């Protein structure tokens, strides 16, 4: 073959991580995908899908939808161009939670489940999610293991005496199971604390996505993923055909068109507790920048 022109697109569609939920391995509470009811909000382009990906710090026996969300990433996918972006929200960001006053952003999951968390983050960024996906740390570990591990590009060596005493070396690092989870959890030993942790969570998402793309051409990969999702994912208001389109949308994202920023802010003190005071102007700018094409030009 001499010349190749490639076109990759999706027409109608939706978006994220659902298809990598492994078959039979996670517990029934490990992953939940909730379609957000849109009573108000921003006019989102039809080609865009927004998913709030949440890591839930639920312990065994706890309802993962009613604890504090520990990792928060708003992911946008442009199904027309194959671009995607992720906006990381530091867990301790002090924000207004509809109907619950002001609190850390992750408390919204505790107060009102995925819908309220979605609205809270959506209000901060000016872009409302179409879906909220909640994954427990245990579920994420099993998922990464099931897809054969992932590779992340780690900008610095770091460790944690409790979570990962051996640490992670600088450069391309292969992660499997809990190694991946801890990579996205460690905060105290990172120079930028919560901000650097959020950036590491984005590196995890990229690693997972690259693995999906690498397997997407394999016959039946998406179909197998869909079956797994239907068996293992709590899907509220999302039909199997919609899930199929979501899975295909994720697989069609071009790794070369993925951008990501972490919402900046300052460290503050509220009632004696250390919190992040998010840069609200930056939040709105990220939302405005990415709203129509899932691309943030400058963090």
């Amino acid at each position, binding site marked *: 073959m001499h010349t190749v*022109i*490639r076109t990759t697109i999706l*027409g109608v569609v939706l978006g994220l991580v659902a298809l990598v939920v492994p078959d039979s391995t996670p517990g029934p509470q490990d992953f939940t995908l909730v379609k957000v009811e849109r009573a108000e909000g921003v006019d989102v382009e039809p080609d865009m899908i927004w998913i709030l990906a949440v890591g839930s710090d639920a312990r065994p026996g706890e309802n993962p939808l009613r604890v504090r969300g520990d990792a928060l990433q708003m992911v946008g996918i442009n199904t027309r161009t194959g671009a995607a972006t992720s906006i990381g929200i530091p867990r301790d960001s002090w924000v207004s939670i509809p109907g619950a006053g002001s609190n850390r952003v992750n408390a919204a999951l505790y107060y009102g489940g995925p819908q309220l968390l979605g609205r809270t983050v959506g209000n901060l960024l000016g872009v409302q999610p179409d879906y909220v996906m909640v994954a427990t740390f245990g579920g994420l570990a099993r998922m990464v293991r099931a897809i054969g591990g992932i590779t992340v590009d780690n900008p610095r060596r770091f460790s944690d005496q409790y979570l990962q005493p051996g640490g992670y070396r600088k450069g391309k690092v292969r992660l499997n199971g809990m190694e991946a989870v801890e990579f996205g959890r460690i905060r105290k030993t990172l120079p930028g604390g919560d901000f650097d942790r959020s950036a590491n969570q984005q590196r995890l998402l990229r690693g997972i996505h690259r693995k999906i793309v690498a397997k997407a051409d394999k*016959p039946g990969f*998406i179909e197998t993923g869909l*079956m797994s999702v239907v068996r293992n994912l709590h899907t509220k208001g999302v039909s*199997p055909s919609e899930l199929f*389109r979501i899975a295909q949308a994720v697989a069609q994202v071009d790794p070369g068109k993925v951008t990501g920023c972490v919402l900046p802010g300052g460290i503050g003190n509220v009632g004696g507790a250390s919190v992040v005071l998010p840069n609200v102007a930056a939040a709105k700018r990220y939302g405005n920048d990415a709203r129509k094409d899932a691309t943030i030009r400058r963090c």
Partner: protein
Amino acid sequence: MLVALVGCSGDDEGSKKDAAPTSSGETASAVETDARLGVVKGRLGKKRSQGVLTAVTAVVERWFDRGYGGDYPRGDFGAAFGEFTKDARALAVRQSGVTSNAKVGPKLEGVEMVRRAIRVDVAAPNGRPAGATARVRLKFTMSGGVERTDLVTGRLLLTPTEDGWKVFGFDLRRGEEAP
């Protein structure tokens, strides 16, 4: 000028016993398409699996026929995407140099089909088809103002709707084949 069509070989993966009856029938061309089930996930049963294969194959064949086959010279390829969703159709039109012969159609005198192959992967959670991936391979030779053989490969993504199976997305490559 009418297209001349040649039957294709069937050396891809897939099972002969799962081959679908094909009927391109759009033009005077009766192309033999090698269409088979690929990976089927879920308890669909043989009869219903065959039903999905037949329905999806028909959609893909109509795209083959209207997008690349048919009479030449011509410049109207809008009918090629009749079974695409509205948004997918708009995107396909925008990429019509890959998704059809629209860019070269007015210069052509004819197209000879060399190979048409389709493998259909199906997901059927709860015993009902929810989506299908049609992996396609189409090879054809153009004559007239453009003289070359092209190969179109990739995937069409489909879901069932009230109006039958519709293409909601695609991932296609088109390249020139060495003579």
